[in-house]
C-alpha cells in the first residue's frame, strides 16, 4: 500500500477532518490507489525544469490604497453560526 492507515490518520489530523474508524480502510485504499497513479510523474525527467504556479504570469497587481465602500458589520456577521455583540463566538480557546 502506498500510504498506511497510520499515515492517513496523521494527514486527516493535519487537515482537521475526522474520518470514522470504520471508513478508514476504504478511504486509505482509495487514496493509496490515486497516489500510486500520481507516481507515474516520476517517469518524467524534469531536471532543470522550472516549476509553474500560474500559466499566465502577472507581476504583482498593485493599486492605490484608497478608502472604498465595504460591507457593513451586520452583513459580515449575517452568516455567522454564533455571534454576540458584533463578534463571532467560538468555543473557549484559553483555559
Amino acid at each position, binding site marked *: 500500500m502506498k*500510504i498506511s492507515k497510520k*499515515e*492517513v490518520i496523521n*494527514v*486527516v489530523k*493535519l*487537515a*482537521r*477532518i*475526522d*474520518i470514522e474508524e470504520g471508513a478508514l480502510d476504504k*478511504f486509505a485504499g*482509495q*487514496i493509496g*490507489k*490515486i*497516489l500510486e*497513479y*500520481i*507516481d*507515474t*510523474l*516520476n*517517469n*518524467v525527467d*524534469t531536471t532543470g*525544469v*522550472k*516549476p*509553474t*504556479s*500560474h*500559466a*499566465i504570469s*502577472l507581476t504583482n*497587481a498593485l*493599486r492605490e490604497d484608497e478608502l472604498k465602500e465595504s*460591507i457593513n458589520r451586520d*452583513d*459580515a456577521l*449575517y*452568516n*455567522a*453560526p*454564533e455571534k454576540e455583540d458584533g463578534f*463571532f463566538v*467560538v*468555543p*473557549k*480557546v484559553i483555559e
Partner: protein
Amino acid sequence: MKLHELTIQDAHNLLKKKEISSKELTGAVLDRIEEVDEKTGAYITVVKKEALLDAENADKCISKGEITPLTGIPLSIKDLICTKGVRTTCASKILENFTPPYDATVITKLKKAGAVITGKVNMDEFGMGSSTENSGLKTTCNPWDVTRVPGGSSGGSAASVAADMCLGSLGSDTGGSIRQPASHCGIVGMKPTYGRVSRFGLVAFASSLDQIGPLTKNVSDCALIMNTISGYDPKDSTSVPKDVPDYLSALETGIEGLTIGVPREFDLDEGVHPDVSMAVKNAVKKMEGLGAKCVDISLPHSKYAVAAYYVIATSEASSNLARYDGVKYGLRDKNQNNLIEMFKNTRKAGFGPEVQRRITIGTYALSAGYYDAYYGKASQVRTLIIEDYSKAFEECDVILSPVAPAPAPEIGENAEDPLAMYLADIFTLSANLAGIPGISLPCGFSNEGLPVGLQLTGGHFNEETILKVAYNFEQATDFHKKKPNI
C-alpha cells in the same frame, strides 16, 4: 417555437421588436422549470419572484429603447458564483445556508446588462467531480437519458440549458467542468483563457486553474455571453488587463486556410468509445471540407496531465477549503468541546467523501517531506505541458480532440472508483494546466442517442479563433438543433 426553446440571440431579436416581453419569456422558462425539473433536478434554488421582477424592469428598459444583447434574457447560475441575497451553497452541506452579502463581478456585469437570473443550479460539491453525483444536496440527471449523469461539475448548468430551463448559464471549469457537461448534454460550453473573466465572487476550488465561462444552446450565444462577462477586474488580482474583442463579429469569417492540429497522443482508436471516435473523425473530415487544413501534432507530455493535475488541484483545494471551519459562515457542528474538535466535527459533517479525499491528498502532497516529490514535481511537469502547447501552436491555430472518452456514464457507474472518474478528464484538464481557452460543441450522437462533444482549444487569449471554427462547424451541421425528449 415555444418561448423557452429560443436561443439568446433569437429571443433578443423578438424582445427588441417588442414581439415578446421579458415577462412572457421569463414566465415561460419558470413554467418549464416547474414542468421538467422534477425529472432532471438541475436547480438547487429557483428565484421566481425576483426573476419576474427583473423581467419587469428589463421590459421597462426595453420600452425606453435601452437594450443590450442580454436584457431580459433568463439565465441560470452555477451555485458557486456568489449572488447577493440569494443562497449560494456550492452544493455542499457546509454552505447549505450561506447567503453572500455581495455579487460576483460576473453577476454584477450580467445585472448591468439587464439579464434575468432564474436561480442557482446543481454541481459536484465545490466543483470536485465530473458527474454532479458528488453534490451534497441533490441528484441531477441527464435530460437525454435520466438514468445517466449530466457530466460535471457544472452538471446543473448543462442540464438546465439542454432542457430549456434557461436560455444560457454560467458555470466554472477547473479541469473540464464546463466543457465535459456541455458535451454530455449536447450543448456549447466554453472555458476562457485564465485571467480573461474575473473570478471575484467565485468560490475557490483550485485558484491557478478555475475559470468562469458560459454554457449555451449555440456558439453565437456563447460569444454574446463572453462579450458581457470578459475583461479586467481590479478586484481579481489574476485578471488580465487586456482589451476584449467583439467575439460575435469574430464568427463572421470562414476557416479556409486555418490549420487544425490533431494530437497523435489522443489516440482515437484506443481507450475512446467507438461512437465518440467516429463522431470526432467525421468532424475532422467536415473541417477539411470547410477549407481548414488538419495536421498531425504532438503533445508529448499529455499522458502525465491527469497525474500532475490531481496533485496541483488537490493541493490548492486543501489550502482554499481550510476556510470552512465553522467560525464565520456555513455549518457549525453542535458537537464541540473545544476549538479543534469544532473544526474537525464541522468538516466531517459538512464535506462529502470526494471533498474529504481531495483535501486529504492535497494535505499529504503539501506536507513536510513530500512537497518536492509531489507539488514540486507536478509544477515542473506543468511547465513541460505548457511548452508542448506553445510548440504545437507554432504549427496550428486550433487543436481538435474529443471532450470526453465516452458519452455520459450511467448514474453510479464510477461511484466506488474515484480514479476511474479522474482518468475520464484526460482530454480537458491540460487546457486548465496551460491556461488556454477551450470550447465544447455538439459533433454527433452515440448509437444510443447520447450527445457527443468536440473540443477545440487555442492559444492564450485566442477565444476568437476557436469560436470562429466552432461557429463554422455548427453552421455546417445539425447536431445542435436536436433536443432531448423530456
